[in-house]
């Protein structure tokens, strides 16, 4: 099965190891992975700020980049949801709209793809640690994917996953919201971190680097010790001990 990676600008810039982990996971599942070089950013920062025309430029670039793809898979629920939003942006441009629809139809978030398309739940991963999971808003509400990550994590050996209170509440990222509405965003991320602390988990797992960058950035600023990892890192983790792995392997990350 041919899979085109859409690694997201955030991963490329700050978390290339997440892109690597995702590649390796998919290859282990016998996918023929390719990386379309024309990809940049899905355009969400502009779209969500109201700059429709600038967002369209990004969208056209992405539509073209993934033109020949069979499946487009991304390690971000939010960016996948943005691809699904493209058709609405080209409401009065039939040609682009059609192409946008084609792209939307073949786009999946990583966990969603593994569970729902490949039909696999046990990736043979092992990660001995106590962890909790942040359900990102766009993944659950815009993409409607609420179960896949939990199914995958339930098979990770040694991983004790504890529920997070008010997990449906936003972490305060919200793209440009995090810089436009700093004082509000701060309260939101602080409450999120409080709930994470209450779980006494060592690791916080998520499937959206935007949220994770926000939560981790705040955790670091507060000098707290919770580790923040993308689910691809957990799923690609085959042998080593969990918590130590987190320390060694996050190149460019904020641990």
């Amino acid at each position, binding site marked *: 099965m041919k899979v085109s990676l859409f*690694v997201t*600008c955030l991963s*490329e*810039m*700050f*978390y*290339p190891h997440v*892109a*690597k982990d995702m590649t390796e996971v998919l290859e282990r599942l016998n996918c023929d992975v390719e*990386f379309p*070089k*024309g*990809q*940049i*950013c899905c*355009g969400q*920062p*502009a*779209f*969500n*700020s*109201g*700059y*429709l025309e*600038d967002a369209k*430029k*990004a969208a*056209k*670039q992405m539509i073209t980049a993934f033109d020949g793809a069979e499946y487009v898979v991304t390690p971000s629920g939010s960016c996948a949801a943005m691809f699904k939003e493209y058709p609405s942006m080209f409401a009065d441009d039939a040609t682009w709209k059609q192409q946008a629809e084609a792209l939307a139809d073949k786009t999946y978030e990583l966990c969603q793809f593994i569970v729902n398309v490949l039909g696999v739940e046990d990736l043979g991963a092992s990660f001995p640690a106590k962890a909790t999971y942040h359900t990102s*808003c*766009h993944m659950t*509400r*815009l993409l409607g994917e609420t179960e896949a990550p939990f199914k995958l994590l339930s098979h990770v050996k040694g991983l004790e996953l504890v529920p997070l209170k008010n997990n*449906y*509440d*936003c972490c*305060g990222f*919200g*793209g440009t*919201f995090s*810089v*436009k*509405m*700093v*004082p*509000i*965003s701060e*309260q*939101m*991320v602080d*409450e999120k971190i409080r709930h994470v602390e209450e779980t006494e988990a060592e690791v916080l797992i998520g499937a959206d680097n935007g949220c994770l*960058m926000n939560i*981790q*950035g*705040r955790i670091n*600023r507060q000098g707290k010790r919770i580790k923040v990892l993308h689910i691809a890192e957990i799923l690609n983790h085959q042998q080593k001990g969990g918590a130590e792995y987190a320390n060694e392997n996050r*190149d*460019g*990350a*904020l641990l």
Partner: protein
Amino acid sequence: MPMKIGTEPFFERVDRSIHDDFMRQAMASAQDRLRGRKLEATVGDDSLIDWELWRNAGEEIRRHTLENLDFYLEQLSESYAARGGHVFFAATAEEANRYIQEVVQKKQAKHVVKAKSMVTEEIGLNEALEAVGCDVLESDLAEYILQIDDHDRPSHIVVPSLHKNKEQIRDTFREKRGYTKSEKPEELAAFAREELREAFLKAEVGITGCNFAVADSGTVALVTNEGNANMVTTLPDTQITVMGMERIVPSWEELDVLVTLLCRSAVGQKLTTYVTGLSPDLEADSVDSPKDYHLVIVDGGRSKALGTEFQSALHCIRCAACVNVCPVYRHIGGHAYGSIYQGPIGAVLSPILGGYEEYGELPYASSLCAACTEACPVKIPLHELLIKHRQRYVSGGGHPKASEKLSMKVFGIGASSPSLFQMAKGMAPAMLSPFTKEKRIEKGPGPMKPWTEIRDFPAPSRDNFRKWFDEHKKKAGDDQ
């Protein structure tokens, strides 16, 4: 002015609210309680079979009604008039207030009692009536609490006094009304009830809002829990109902669906204690029913949304489910919105009714988490409407910062040129290295500054995924 709360700039209001620990505590616990109850009474109630089907029906009813609003408004005014009631269409708040003032003055009324109504808050009716020498008493307990506390403003569309706890209410009662008992809700309610009883008997005019007006029967439906609306609508001889022009349903059949959606979403009740149907009833030869009925239908800027991408905002049935799940509202409370309409629906509605000059920040006071859209019983796409406001705001409706416009332009160019993006990615680590400490940035330059006010920023990775991927592929090819 009446829709507006306070005069401070947005961020000052936010700052003050965030530091009000009392209010924050009240908001968070009220939200948790209301959310839980709503879930139990909606998705969690098997007797409904499938809550989603109810939402679909609600959405369809609201869409149909708003698409045919002129028809239903005409039908409503005819059926109301046929029963002997008077109907007045007010284009503005001033027109509505003037009409009501005239009615009251003609009756030489001095005492007015009111049931809960957001639209009368919106038009500032109490002040208008006080200006012509009337004494106005709010009979909804929450509104009464606010009124006696020097006209404090509502912080929630369903429970206007949500920002106050029972100790604060006790103190207000003591200070303003000589109350001597405890903070027990029953005692507080009993005390208010005593004062209200007298007012009900004295009042010449009763004023209510309107949850839904039934077009074909000329009936105003009121959904309440305290019974005060029944007193307001039966004792005073003159009845005035004030409604937003969109609060209309075709017939009792649709009313049934919407009342179900409203009660369950607002307070998690299958049905509120009272659902009152009020129609002018002049033919019956009863001696003790009211003698005079007025229906004031307020536009107040609503028609600006008709036929636009914002029309669905008028589908709102004011249940506050969106407010109760909103994480922004949770932390800043109602007053910080600066409008009597707060939370997600407030952020959508206030700029429509009051303009961007006054409410331009509100559409940005959302992380677009879409909890509101998910909660709305009539499926208003609230987070999408917030984005639509932003689009309007930046394309001429408001005053976006020039620097933001520029950076979005640059974004558009960068996001459509892979070579530029690669160049930027390649240069970023070096450019940011003066700010970078142990792979993190604590004080970022330029646009990163607001981010790093409260959090660290990751240093751009020196690793290049594209290079790794090429090599990785090549290696795999070699191995074969």
